[in-house]
């Protein structure tokens, strides 16, 4: 009897099948969710969670896989958001096309970041990305064309409109961001398991050695940056359409870039599901803490949050996902002996 159970657990733990089956079930649940649940606030949570999942996964492509940690992703986010919004306001261009243009512009500006990326190492690169985002933020707040410090309000149409990317209910936004998440995660998965991913990770481990072995470091970093920036820009447009208001303070600060990176780090830099888990954790923990401690004692919840974050990062340096994978490994070894 025990023998049969052991066999079952053994096969279930065979990593390949576990992941594929789990993924399928989770996807099914997520897609069918709206049919069952009606809670508007719940949707809002899920939407923001997936929004951060998209951001974290995109960030991961350049920073997790290639090790070029960026603290300036808010810049890409904003380029996407502002581009589609400005095109919408001035040329009545549908945000869907505006989104693609915005994403491309972000990718282009990613190339600008790429130049220092190949020349600067470690902390210097990180700081240059932060500086880049700050420059952009100041520029935007001075620019009347981009609404300046007052930001831009996305013109509202009455009713639902797929063309104008606006909806009264939440569920269309939910499906859209879910769709984006699936795409980005899929691409991330493909990269991780391909030659490109291998090269990126080699670059992360030891750039010099990779170069010597014939890896075109510059080319692959450019590729990763462009992809990362493109999807971040797309998420920016989504944000603009969902929140209906963008401003330098809301989306261009260093705090935003840090949030994006944090999501990937706590979930697991360098794995494709890491950022999703990270986004869920980031949001989930925030909500739990706020629920338990309420708004009464000012600052307590954010303080506890900071402490939890420190403890977490120290306990799970490789992120939660990697930790669970390692755990799975021990489990497996136990059952085989």
């Amino acid at each position, binding site marked *: 009897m025990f023998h049969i159970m052991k066999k079952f657990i053994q096969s279930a733990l065979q990593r390949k099948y576990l992941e594929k089956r789990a993924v399928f079930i989770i996807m099914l649940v997520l897609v069918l969710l709206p049919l069952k649940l009606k809670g508007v606030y719940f949707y809002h949570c899920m939407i923001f969670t997936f929004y951060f999942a998209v951001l974290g996964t995109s960030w991961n492509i350049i920073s997790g896989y290639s090790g070029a940690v960026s*603290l300036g992703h808010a810049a890409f986010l904003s380029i996407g958001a502002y581009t589609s919004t400005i095109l919408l306001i001035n040329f009545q261009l549908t945000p869907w096309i505006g989104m693609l243009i915005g994403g491309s512009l972000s990718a282009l500006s990613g190339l600008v970041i790429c130049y220092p990326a190949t020349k600067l190492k470690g902390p210097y690169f990180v700081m240059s990305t932060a500086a880049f985002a700050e420059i952009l933020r100041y520029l935007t707040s001075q620019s009347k064309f981009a609404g300046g410090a007052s930001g831009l309000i996305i013109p509202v149409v009455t009713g639902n409109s797929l063309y104008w990317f606006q909806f009264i209910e939440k569920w269309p936004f939910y499906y859209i961001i879910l769709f984006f998440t699936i795409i980005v995660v899929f691409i991330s998965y493909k990269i991780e398991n391909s030659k490109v991913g291998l090269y990126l990770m080699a670059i992360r481990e030891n750039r010099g050695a990779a170069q010597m072995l014939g890896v075109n470091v510059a080319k692959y970093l450019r590729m990763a940056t462009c992809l990362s920036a493109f999807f971040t820009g797309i998420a920016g447009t989504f944000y603009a359409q969902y929140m209906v208001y963008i401003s330098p303070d809301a989306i261009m600060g260093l705090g935003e870039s840090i949030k994006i990176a944090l999501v990937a780090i706590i979930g697991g830099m360098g794995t494709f599901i890491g950022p999703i888990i990270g986004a869920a954790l980031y949001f989930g923990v925030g909500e739990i803490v706020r629920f338990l401690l309420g708004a009464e004692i000012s600052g307590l919840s954010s303080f506890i949050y900071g402490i939890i974050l420190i403890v977490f990062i120290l306990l799970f340096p490789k992120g939660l996902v990697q930790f669970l994978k390692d755990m799975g490994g021990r489990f497996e070894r136990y059952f085989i002996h």
Partner: protein
Amino acid sequence: MAIMLLQAIVCGLLNGGVYALISMGLALIFGVVKVVNFAHGEFLMLAMYITYWVFTRWGVDPHLSLFLCSGTLFFVGYVTQKLLIERTFNKPFEGELQIFVTVALSLAFINGMHMIGKADYRGINLSYASMALNIQSLTFNFLKAVSFFLALIVSYLIYLFLMKTDRGRAMRAVTENREAAALIGIDVNKNYCLAFGIGAGLTGIAGALLTPSFYVFPGVGLLFVLKAFVIIVLAGMGSVSGAFIAALIVGVLESLGGFLIGAAYTQMLIFAIFILSMLFRPNGLFRRRE
């Protein structure tokens, strides 16, 4: 107009003195331990709160409480290195981990202080705070001039420490080559803790001196920390005296720029210079080897 420009330069230099103290601490930490310490601004903030409390409760002048601040912050820095940063060594993604641990620490400090002190803006007023020396119709604010000279003295003391003392030489050895230093028997971790402690202590002095002419609230550190990073990069990795000079340069740039092209564009300019200097002068503007 010419007088105004000169005055702008004077103000810039004096401000630079304050920035210098903050940055020298960061230069030491970044240079020796090689950590991007995002919580550095909070060291400043803690010192400012201590100075404020000690002044309002017992009337202790900030120039006296700077000893208390530097001592307390030394302890805080030492402990931060020992309990937090050390834990990140030799783990995968070490560099990134360090950044985020310090970010989380910064959040904890800011929000912790928010709980204790509330977000109210506080200030202290020294009777002699606006005393100024007027030379040739240029105003030299007394308090800021004092900070400037203290920064100068401290900078020299640190230089002496690093160059002439055994402990300092050990620290420099660790900066140059961690493994080799360990091989000759230098306790690397202890030196890291010391460097972090001294770095934080320097910032503590800055906090005490800054309090009378600024205002205190939990997020005050955030206003200065990015500038400090720009300064230490311009100075070159770990160069403490370089940080002093770079701080003066940034102070003057900020002042002149603000006067001539407006503060927002000046900030952009400073960040642009920051990026360019990292690209083209990675060893700092002065290429001095400490």
